[in-house]
């Protein structure tokens, strides 16, 4: 065959093969696009988790469980089923989260339960760069995706996952106290080795051994109890007054406070 003919023949074969590849890719394309979207959502949630951990855990707790007196839980049934109705939001929850995070809150909607009642403690700050906050819009969308990922769990559709934090032995006051420490959100601000990593308030490691000498006239137990119920009575050097919620005396029962004190007294 002449070169021209050879080239025409092979060229035709190549064009047919190329067409075949494009057709095969075209058949796979809807599936590929769907897969990509699922993976993209997964990556968005991963990214949102890291943004949440850095920016949001101070007030909403390390697991988004909320901190009594400061900020609500973002993983309970109420948040996923009734919150929108309460504030009169017409759209979806994810958009609501994006909106609240972006602009923050000027006035608390539940000053009786969370921060914002006295005017001294801030309500939800503005997070978007557009309004002077630290986060880009894509980071805010990622946080919303992360919070939305609590939904099946919050609605009880899947069983609770056991967290890594050591489980408390609920039969002793100390064990119950440890559970209170996590439930009340103390862990968000205070570090206890092996249990929590909060960095707003003082580290509580070795608290029991130094509590008795901190304020003269108060035993270790009295000092700890006072610090929980009336945090402003004595403020550890280097920390600002008013950081710690003043409401634990009313939100926790007498028994819970007793358990909590018993637990904190074990921190030698």
């Amino acid at each position, binding site marked *: 065959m*002449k070169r021209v003919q050879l080239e025409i023949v092979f060229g035709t074969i190549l064009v047919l093969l190329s067409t075949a590849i494009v057709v095969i890719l075209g058949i796979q394309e809807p599936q590929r696009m769907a897969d990509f979207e699922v993976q993209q959502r997964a990556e968005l949630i991963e990214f949102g988790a890291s943004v949440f951990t850095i920016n949001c855990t101070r007030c909403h707790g390390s697991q988004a469980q909320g901190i009594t007196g400061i900020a609500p839980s973002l993983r309970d049934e109420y948040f996923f089923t009734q919150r929108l109705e309460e504030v009169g939001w017409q759209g979806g929850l994810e958009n609501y989260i994006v909106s609240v995070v972006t602009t923050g809150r000027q006035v608390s909607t539940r000053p009786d339960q969370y921060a914002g009642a006295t005017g001294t403690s801030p309500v939800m700050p503005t997070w978007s760069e557009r309004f002077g906050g630290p986060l880009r819009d894509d980071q805010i969308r990622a946080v919303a995706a992360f919070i939305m990922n609590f939904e099946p769990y919050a609605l009880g559709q899947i069983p609770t996952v056991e967290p890594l934090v050591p489980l408390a032995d609920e039969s002793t006051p100390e064990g119950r106290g440890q559970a209170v420490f996590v439930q009340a959100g103390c862990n968000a601000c205070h570090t206890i080795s092996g249990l929590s990593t909060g960095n707003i308030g003082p580290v509580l490691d070795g608290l029991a051994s130094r509590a008795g000498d901190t304020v003269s006239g108060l035993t270790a137990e009295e000092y700890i109890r006072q610090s929980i119920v009336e945090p402003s009575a004595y403020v550890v050097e280097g920390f600002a007054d008013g950081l710690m919620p003043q409401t634990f005396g009313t939100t926790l029962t007498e028994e819970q406070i007793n358990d909590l004190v018993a637990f904190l007294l074990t921190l030698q």
Partner: protein
Amino acid sequence: MLNALRRRLNIPPRDQWRAAIAKIIDDRVRIITAGLSIRELRAVMRGDPPTEKPNPRYKVITTSFVAHLRPRYYPKASTWFTHTYRLGFFTTFFFIVEVITGVILMVYYIPFPDQAYESILVIESNVFFGELLRDLHRLGAEAMVIFSWLHLLRTYFTGSYKGPRTFTWLTGVILLLITAWLSFTGYLLPWDQLAYWAVTVGTSITESGPVVGPALNLLMRGAPDIGTGGLLRFYLQHVILFPLLAIALISIHYYKVSREHSISLPAVVEETERTPDQKKEDNRRIDLIPDLLSHEVFLVSLGIFIMLVILYFRWFASPLETHANPQQTPLDTKAPWYFWWLQGLLKIDPAAIIEGMVNPIFETFRLGFRLELSKLLNSKFIMGLIVPPTLIIILLAIPYIDRNPSRLARKRPFAIMWGIAWVFIVIALSFMGTPQFGIETPPATRIIQDLAPEEGEGALRLIPYQELQQGIYVVGEEYGPDLCPTLSYQPDPEGDVNNVVVGCPNLTAVFREFSEKLLAAEAEGELPDLNANITVEQVQYNLKRVTPQVEWTDPESGETKTYEHTYYLHQDRPHEE
């Protein structure tokens, strides 16, 4: 009766119909092909000689606009495959691929920092063939860079830049620069970490320039940092200014070849004695139609086929890292590989080298002073702003520097040696420019980053989600052969039920590697009092947090230091099998 009607309507008798229709079709074909009849077209496709005289195939070249840009014929010798390797042809081919895919991508891309990255995600997830288009565009860009460099090397080694082709060489070098700038401006557009930091580092070179440096930097970035203005500037350069410049220069470059001096003949043909038979064969005309055209159509189909095969088997995929974050500088910024030589240059500090050579001499003679060049010479300025433009000027001036009239390789040994030397220098500089070269990372950071780099995969991210059993795995502690003996899972939930993995072999392997590297570093004294672990926690029902953590005593200051990095791994995360 019927015949009377026919005469009246001026319809020819039946036996003339076929001829009349054939003539109508033939006329149409002649119009479409700009001069070839059906018979001629058939002869062209079969490689037969022309059917009419004068040769109608030459008529096409005068009547068709597209064909008139092309030469009528080339002498056989200048079409030898081993002479040109079709490198210029393929460079143009990739340019056209870039234009076509680029125009389609422009429909979906939004050049605005808040939306750019997202629009890339939309192209990948929501546009039919979006990923294919993006991959074609990226692959075409890299291929265009490779082929234009190879084309330059071929021209250099065959001596084709010599007169009368000196000006063509000049336009070629400028085209190479345009290609490089096109790829660099395109690099920023996805607005991911890779893009943002490569371009931030790249543009910062201009900052070191005297007087106009900061202004130039501002001009390129649009603001002190690359933002909305900078992205728009890069985008407009990428889609309008430089494509237009490229088209203009390609036109000049090609016009010179097709109208003025043609493709160079191989030096052996021009400068050595050829037998009459060889001469006749060398000068045999290779016509545009059909030989060149069929060859070029074949090459195009070959080029498209190879690109599609590469993409089908995923031997190449355009990278996409996380969203650009001006607040977080990645551990290593990666310039595109074809700029590694420049990055390698920037790692050289000429002032320090001269000081290192001169100061010991001063000390031996006790001259009482030290040379402190670093205060006078900014290495970024010299290696970033003085050396590369000098190299470009030399490259441009090669035809004017090299006055040797011969093009035969054996008669220009110096030029050939220089060429080879430069290829090796560029390769060496590129090696120096790789992100890892010559950059000292603290051991703990390095070990964790090896396990799981900030961007991309890495062993840690490849652990199947099911294997991530909650727990704190402490380095140095004795574990059994597997970290999670009670675990077992089905890697493919919809597949074979008997296909069950027992334990967590991947997690165990990663933990072992992590431990071995750290314990080795501890033994070498880099990480004394080592205290390290990998913590795996469940964050949400389908999300885990993995934190490798290292604590050690700094050998120099005696302080306790820690390094940790947190990774979130979702069940549905992309997973290369």
